Structure formats: C-alpha cells, structure tokens
C-alpha cells in the first residue's frame, strides 16, 4: 500500500485519520454537555446557545475558517492568549483538527439531542424512586439509553471531519506533511492537468475509511440495541 501511494498522499491519509479522530474525540464531551443543556435545562440564552451550536452548519465553510483564523490565529483574540501558554493552532495539524471539530460539532449535538429527547423520563424517575442518586441514574440509565445517539453522532462527526475542506484550508492552510488532509490533497492534485489518477486513489481511500467506520458503528449500535432490550 505504501508503494501504491506517493509519500505525499500517504501523509495526507495519516493526517486525515489523526485529524478526524482527535476532532471527534475532543468535541464529544462538549457536544454532550451542549445537548444535555438544550434538552434538560432551562436557562437564559438557551436560544442563543442553540443558534451558536448550529452556526457551522449554516455558514459557508470558508467563513467558519476565516472566523477561526480571526479568533484562533496567532494575532487572534484567543489564539494570542493560547500562544502565550505555548499552544499554536494556525497552520498546524491541531488547527486542522479544530476546524474539523467545529464543523462536525452541530452534527454531534443534533444526534445526541434526539437520543436524549427520546428517553422516557419515567425510566429515570423509576430509578430514582428505587433509591438511585441523580449521578447513578445518569450513569446507569440516561447514558446507556443514549448510546445509539452517541454512536450516530460519532460516526457523523468522524465522516464530516474526514471530508472537511473549506474551513480547514482557510484556517490551517494546505501544507504537505502538516495540514494537508485527504480533501486538500485531492484539491491540490485536481489543480494540475493529468493528476486525476492520484486524486482517484485518494477518493477510494477516503470512501473506504468512511465506509469502514460506518460499518463498525452499525455493528456497535446493533450490539448496544440488543443489550438495551435485554435489560
């Protein structure tokens, strides 16, 4: 396989996998908290939080990337502060992961929200009347019932992160070996006549990774479903 791909393409595959993995992992707890707050809590500014969480879905990706550059760039409001404590995001793979994570965030929130809304609140109440503490109810009733939504959210986010292009190239650039993901490598290849074959190889790999992840999550979801029904 290493001979099949040029070193540049191979690097792009590894960077894409790394970026998508960390982006998905990093947004999971934040998306969980956001979804939980939107469904279960009443607080001022709830509509604003809902709107903000969905913004990356609505905005053109290059606008999201540009806003990330303004906020998290070395001259940016948050980026300058992060740089002081030694974290640089712009033009690094970590920046690509931030861009992918932000773009995937609404998908994860939506999936978690739906699964949370579908939970029969009486199940939680029943657990509480039987003496379970709120934390115990959360850990043994709420979270297990959310597993299908969690899996859906994870797979959607991973797929989105894998395919993200506009925000990534705007915020993290297209640096081979550092921030060049599969989509940016495909883009670069398509800019020169006669490189369609190399681009096609990357497309095949991209599709394979996404399908493998999809099948894995389907299998996990079936197992989770069986266990839930067994309860």
């Amino acid at each position, binding site marked *: 396989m290493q001979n099949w791909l040029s070193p540049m393409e191979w690097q792009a595959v590894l960077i894409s996998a790394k970026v998508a993995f960390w982006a998905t992992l990093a947004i999971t707890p934040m998306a969980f908290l956001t979804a939980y707050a939107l469904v279960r809590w009443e607080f001022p500014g709830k509509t604003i939080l809902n709107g903000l969480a969905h913004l990356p879905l609505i905005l053109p990706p290059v606008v999201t990337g540009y806003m990330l550059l303004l906020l998290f760039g070395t001259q940016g409001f948050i980026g300058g502060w992060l740089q002081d404590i030694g974290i640089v995001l712009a033009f690094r793979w970590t920046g690509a992961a931030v861009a992918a994570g932000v773009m995937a965030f609404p998908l994860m929130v939506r999936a978690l929200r739906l699964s949370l809304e579908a939970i029969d609140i009486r199940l939680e109440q029943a657990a509480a009347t039987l003496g379970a503490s709120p934390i115990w109810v959360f850990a043994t009733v709420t979270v297990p019932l959310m597993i299908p939504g969690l899996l859906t959210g994870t797979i959607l986010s991973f797929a989105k992160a894998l395919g993200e292009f506009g925000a990534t190239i705007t915020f993290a650039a297209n640096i081979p070996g550092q921030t060049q993901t599969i989509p940016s490598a495909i883009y670069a290849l398509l800019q*020169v006549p006669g490189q369609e074959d190399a681009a096609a190889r990357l497309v095949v790999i991209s599709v394979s990774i996404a399908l493998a992840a999809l099948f894995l999550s389907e299998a996990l979801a079936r197992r989770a479903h069986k266990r839930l029904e067994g309860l």
Partner: protein
Amino acid sequence: MFDTLVQDFEAETGHSAQVNFAGSALLARQIELGAPVDVFVSANQQWMDHLEAVGRVDSANRFPLAGNRLALVSSFPEDKSREVETVLSSLEAADRVAMGLVAAVPAGQYGKVALEYLGLWGDLRDRVVQMDNVRAALTLVHLGETRLAVVYETDAESQPDVFLVGLFPPESHPRIEYPAAAVGQSPTKATLDFIVFLQSDATKSRLEQFGFGPVKP
C-alpha cells in the same frame, strides 16, 4: 478588473457579456466537458495548453492578454525599505511565508522557482504556508498571520496595509502571462469582436491602469 473590461466592451460594441469567475482548474474542466463558454481567460498556461490539447481551444484564437510580476509583501512596515533577498534570508524563528500551493497554483509554482533561483528555497521550505489561491496568501499577511507572502505585483497593489518589499528579478522565474482564447473551433462574430477588443489599445491602457504589465512578443 475584468468587470471593468467587460463594461468597456459592452459600451463600445453593444454586445452583452456574462462573466463567470473561478479558478483555472475548475473553469478548464467545465470547458473541457462542454460548458457553454465563448472566451476563457486564465492565469494558468498549463490549463490553456490542456484545452488546446483536447481541442476545445484553437491556437489561432489564443493570445497572451497581460503580464504580471512576482512580488514579496510583508506585514512589517520596516520591510518596505529592505531588499527582497535580505528580508527572506534574515527571518526570525516564528516568521512564515504564505504562498499559493507550490505544486499547483501558478503564483506558488513561479514563487518556488524564484526562491530556488535565489538559493533560498532549501532554508524557506519549512516556513512556507501553502494556500489554495494567491489571494488567500495575501489575506494571511493582511491579518498578520504570516510575516510575508509571495504574490503578484497587482495583488500587492490592491491590498491596503500590506507592504510591498519588492519584486522578484524577472530572470528568476518563467515569464508570467495570462493567456486568453476563444473557446471552440468556430467562434461567433460576437466572440471574435471580444477577442479583438481584448487585444486593442483601449484594453492595454485599462490593464496598465490596474497594474498589469505589457505582454512581450
């Protein structure tokens, strides 16, 4: 810039023209696959050559529209009074250089050749931030995200609060020319009128007004 040319053309001839702006690669692919296009103007000789090779452009109807120069711009005002080579060879650890994709975007390709010619590419390659087009590289300097960018002279002039360090020597890279051509083997009268207009003195002075250089024979 091109909008103004089209307005001039419409005022002069009474024809009307629709402009579709996009990157050379995308436009060339659309044209190759039969998009209803009469005239193609590109910053990229490779794609024009490709369209000629696949028979969508006749070399008889192809001509260089304008020339440009490669420039180094900086976000540091003090770089304005320094030489291109001095600035590029005395960078601080955190300084970066934004360019178009050096393997794919013409300004990036010319830039890489120029830096190699000056013997600076080896030292600079790890500092280069590659963007999908040359305007994005310019934006990074405008935002102060990179200290420097290699762009076209016309880009350098179009962006306020970006400082022009200087131009790369003309011999350091292949001549930069924007090719234009009528699409298809039998252009219409209106298309030919536009081609004639694009080669007229009126167009030349308009292009000069926007900073584009003359085309050398």
